[in-house]
């Protein structure tokens, strides 16, 4: 029987942990709070070290908190991160997404900086500033940076944050042997602008009930009783992270899979491991390729998905090519699964747009923490609630008592 408005928008008869108020996916004020209370306070995966392989290499990263950053490998080999902002009058220091520069020179007035963030030249400094402004006063703003967990470069805008290891905790432990067996290299980096909320896409990596969406996943796992698909379990970690147990993928069940016999160091043959990190990163190691999803939320209903595929630095050209081919079957922009994931989460963004009178979003599946349990999403929103000081099921109610406020 269909429902009227009151029935449609009524809170479900479920524990408050088992549903979310749709406003968390569309409210502009909540989004601004997410920037202050979450994005600016946690460690984000910015780039991979292979993307700044040599001295003076740099890459630009748009931080979800709103600041554009420049990540530089110095002459001393150390990777540092600075605001991509000239301290003179706020111009971008670099315009290209990548480059190599012994000095970072602002095009506007030619102020120059080195890879340690020191200001090394101000044209006509004495003539214009006398002793009122000196180079020491106008060095670049450095950002906390750590390299780890497979050579990824992580940044945190909060100068007083804990270490990366404190934030990750044991969440990546079960993939650490594979991440650190050999140096990695980025084979693909591209972005996809999507009209949806970042949490909705991250949800598709946090639950596998949506394998009904993916014909590929059904035939290569879900429908095969010997694959171990339904025996996989979620493990929830502190700080909102969660992982999914491994399984063996039956690739040849998909006609035309074109999958090679290539594997990954330390990963069992045809193995698959996945870890979701709060607030918006997924490590997805599938047999021969490592996929990393990270997000740059731009607005409550707009997000950039950053998509990486990695192989091993030691791979020959032929092996790299084969890894790309393996990845392409489901994960290229023309692959079987990626389009389906983005179609569904974009559809959520359209259907539940602000003002659409969306219903409460159910996250109520309980299956003893196995693969179609929705504990991954509930765990995520529990951390979201803790950091926001708001319940995800009633976010516009009074702030939770004792909530941590930025």
């Amino acid at each position, binding site marked *: 029987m269909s429902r009227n408005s009151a029935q449609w928008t009524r809170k479900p008869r479920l524990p408050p942990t088992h549903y979310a108020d749709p406003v968390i996916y569309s409210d502009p004020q909540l989004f601004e709070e997410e920037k202050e209370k979450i994005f600016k306070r946690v460690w984000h995966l910015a780039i991979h070290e292979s993307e700044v392989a040599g001295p003076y290499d740099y890459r630009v990263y748009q931080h979800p908190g709103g600041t554009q950053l420049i990540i530089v490998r110095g002459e001393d080999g150390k990777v540092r991160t600075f605001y991509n902002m000239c301290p003179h009058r706020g111009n971008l220091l670099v315009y290209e997404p990548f480059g190599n520069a012994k000095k970072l020179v602002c095009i506007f007035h030619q102020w120059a900086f080195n890879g340690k963030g020191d200001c090394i030249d101000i044209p006509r400094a004495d003539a214009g500033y006398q002793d009122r402004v000196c180079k020491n006063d106008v060095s670049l703003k450095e950002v906390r940076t750590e390299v780890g967990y497979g050579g990824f470069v992580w940044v945190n805008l909060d100068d007083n944050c804990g270490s990366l290891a404190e934030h990750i905790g044991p969440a990546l432990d079960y993939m650490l042997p594979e991440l650190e067996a050999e140096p990695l290299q980025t084979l693909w980096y*591209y972005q996809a602008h*999507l009209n949806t909320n970042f949490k909705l896409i991250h949800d598709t990596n946090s639950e596998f009930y949506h394998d009904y969406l993916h014909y590929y996943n059904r035939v290569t796992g879900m429908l095969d009783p010997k694959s171990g698909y339904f025996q996989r379990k979620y493990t929830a970690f502190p700080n909102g992270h969660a992982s999914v147990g491994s399984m063996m993928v039956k690739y040849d069940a998909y006609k*035309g899979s074109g999958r090679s016999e290539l594997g990954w160091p330390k990963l069992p043959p045809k193995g698959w491991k996945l870890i979701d990190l709060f607030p918006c990163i997924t490590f997805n190691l599938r047999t021969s390729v490592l996929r990393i999803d990270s997000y740059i939320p731009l607005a409550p209903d707009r997000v950039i998905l950053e998509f990486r595929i990695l192989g091993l630095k030691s791979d020959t050209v032929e092996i790299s*090519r084969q890894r*790309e081919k393996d990845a*392409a079957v489901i994960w290229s922009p023309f692959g079987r699964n990626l*389009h*389906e994931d983005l179609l569904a989460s974009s559809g959520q963004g359209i259907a539940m747009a602000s003002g659409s009178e969306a219903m409460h979003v159910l996250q109520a599946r309980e299956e003893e923490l196995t693969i179609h349990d929705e504990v991954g999403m509930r765990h995520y929103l529990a951390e979201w609630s803790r950091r926001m000081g708001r319940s995800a099921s009633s976010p516009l109610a009074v702030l939770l008592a004792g909530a941590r406020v930025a």
Partner: protein
Amino acid sequence: MSNNRSDVEELVYDTCMLLDAKDFKGFLERCDERFEYKLSAYSPEIKREMTWLDHGRAEISELFNTLPRHNTDPSPLTRNAVVYKVKVDDDAKRASVVSALQVFRTAINGGVTELFAIGKYYDTVDLNGDTPRLLARHVKLDTRDLGWVHHVPF
């Protein structure tokens, strides 16, 4: 041997119309048995070409066959190619063809048309028969942000 430029152009334009119409059988009939298809885009961020599709004829045929089993954006695509260069190798009875490509998407809901992607077709055409056939196609995209992306090769 067909080495008429207009015949080669017509082949390129036919492939666009056939793919637009999702007439994959018709498209493959314009391809040689040895057909190879590659689609790539250069990522300046990592200074590397990303190969997103790389298939022989059997593989691309299987890709087309399994499309109906997948969930796909139903919005129709329109491929517009402009043949820039046709270079004929009389000895090899082949032509190398470079065409500019624009792909438009018209939203199924409402009918708004937007530019989806640009790039170029780098084709190798076999000129042995009465009509030219596509021996190889390398689609090099300039666009690398395809939004919610797509299933059907360009």
